[in-house]
């Protein structure tokens, strides 16, 4: 049913280069969270430290009472069975066909019979729309198919936590929309805790329940979707609306001259907040909140035109809004 992931005071540096410091957040059980940030802010490093592939310098990542950052190798391999991870390029094993790739975790970790494995694998392949391609090698299929195959493999052990690294890199807009819909549908079905790492703001605006923004070596903000989309905080505002005006420059941070030159420029108004993607079955997800609820509860006036059925389309024209 999904589990909480509690991250506290996480700090990591490679040599003298600090990646991020003091990252504290909780991924709520069963909800979809997205972590975004400019390129090179250590989003993937954060994801890898959640599964213990990278040891943080300080802080803790607690999952079901086990601290990933300090537990033994043996505990780590146990806890990892709760995870499904989709790597950037799918990370399929090049020497095996898709069927064997997806069956791999089942064959290694369970004593299921070959016919039962076949049933489960086919079910997952059907879920990601790969029926008919199961005997192809990963080298013979497109990047989008590799990603979907990677997703099928990540799902095969029924994970409680699903970590997804840049699902939209190298996908066309249509495939990106399909894969976003797939995530929402999956969350409705398996109720796992999702963490998606991306910098595609179109997906960010419509998919998640929670958004986090990594910027300038720290977690700038983390909270419900509507909180960030209606935020006036310059960094959040600039990034979520893909604007050039704001503190983020081409090389991480703008210098004083550039900021001074922009001082008199008016920020473009916030675009309307779109409706969240619904599961295609029409039945709301357990963690889904009614549109506008957060804004109402916190007395925030959403930008004009928010939460209208047609506003999902408006996001494509963010820059000119």
């Amino acid at each position, binding site marked *: 049913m999904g589990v909480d992931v509690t991250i506290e005071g996480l700090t990591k540096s490679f040599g003298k280069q600090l990646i991020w410091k003091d990252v504290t957040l909780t991924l709520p059980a069963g909800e979809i969270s997205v972590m975004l940030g400019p390129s090179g802010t250590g989003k993937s490093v954060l994801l*890898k430290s959640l*599964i213990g*592939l990278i040891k943080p310098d300080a802080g803790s990542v607690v999952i079901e009472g086990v601290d990933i950052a300090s537990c033994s190798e043996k505990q780590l*391999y*146990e806890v*990892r*069975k709760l*995870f499904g*991870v989709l*790597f*950037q*390029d799918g*990370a*399929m*094993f*090049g020497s095996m066909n898709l069927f064997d790739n997806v069956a*791999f*975790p089942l064959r*290694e*970790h369970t004593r299921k019979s070959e016919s039962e494995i076949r049933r489960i694998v086919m079910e997952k392949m059907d879920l990601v729309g790969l029926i008919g391609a199961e005997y192809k090698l990963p080298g013979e299929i497109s990047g989008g198919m590799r990603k979907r195959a*990677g997703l099928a*493999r990540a799902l095969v*052990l029924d994970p409680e936590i699903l970590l997804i690294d840049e699902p939209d890199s190298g996908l066309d807009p249509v495939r990106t929309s399909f894969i976003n819909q797939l995530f929402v549908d999956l969350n409705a079905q398996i109720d796992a805790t999702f963490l998606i790492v991306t910098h595609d703001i179109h997906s960010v605006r419509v998919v998640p329940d929670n958004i986090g923004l990594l910027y300038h070596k720290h977690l700038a903000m983390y909270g419900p979707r509507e909180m960030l989309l209606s935020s006036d905080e310059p960094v959040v505002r600039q990034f979520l609306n893909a604007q050039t005006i704001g503190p983020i420059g081409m090389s991480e941070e703008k210098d004083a001259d550039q900021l001074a030159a922009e001082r008199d420029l008016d920020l473009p108004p916030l675009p309307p907040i779109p409706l969240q993607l619904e599961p295609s079955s029409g039945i709301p997800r357990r963690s889904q909140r009614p549109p506008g609820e957060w804004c109402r509860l916190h007395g925030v006036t959403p930008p004009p035109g928010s939460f209208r059925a047609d506003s999902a389309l408006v996001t494509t024209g963010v820059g000119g809004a």
Partner: protein
Amino acid sequence: MASLTATRVLAPVGTAGKLFAFALDVLRGLFRRPFQLREFIQQAWFIASVTIIPTALVAIPFGAVIALQAGGLIKQFGAQSFTGSASVLAVVREAGPIATALLIAGAGGSAIAADLGARKIREELDAMMVLGIDPIQRLVVPRVLACMLVAVFLNGLVSVVGVAGGYVFNVIMQGGTPGAYIASFTALAQLPDVWQGLAKALVFGMIAAIVASYMGMNAGGGPKGVGDAVNLSVVITFLLLFLVNFVMSAIYFQLVPPKTG
């Protein structure tokens, strides 16, 4: 500045330490169940298939060179009847293990480093760890064992082909007598020479596979990183193998007295 220099100077020590720690992990993995029999057989077959023909082709000139060198020298001493003996001694004791080392590191090791390096940069190894499977046990241990097995057989192949090559050159090119060549085989050489050759091959196979796996699994920075890893693994393996060969030869001479007579 001083600390920067110290870091640079100490970096190789750190690498050596990590390599050693990796080797210990592999040794521990050798005894962990379940043993990956399928992977072991596949790898043994693969390594054998990339090394057998080059090894045989290297062994022929190796045997011939030794026959030419030793034959010429022995002729000057007037001891032609010992040519066969000298040739066997040189091939079995040194040339066999050295040729095996070159081929195992150059053909087998580079293939292992390239394979694991490609898996590393495609995040396959990360994916495997995340799926709760230790790549050392699943991938490295079968490769190390396969390399050791194949190295032992290659050593035998080099010995046979090398001695045969020496025979052909001695008899045809240098006008030696076939009977004398064969009869003098056991004049200087003895059974422990074969054992030490096999022991060397075992150790060489292990070192080559461990270094190649380590370099492959620590490749970084895209396709260029894989190329660098393969390059480094071959260079480091050569250095280590020649060093270990010297040490093992020195120990052997202390343990087994040369045959007199």
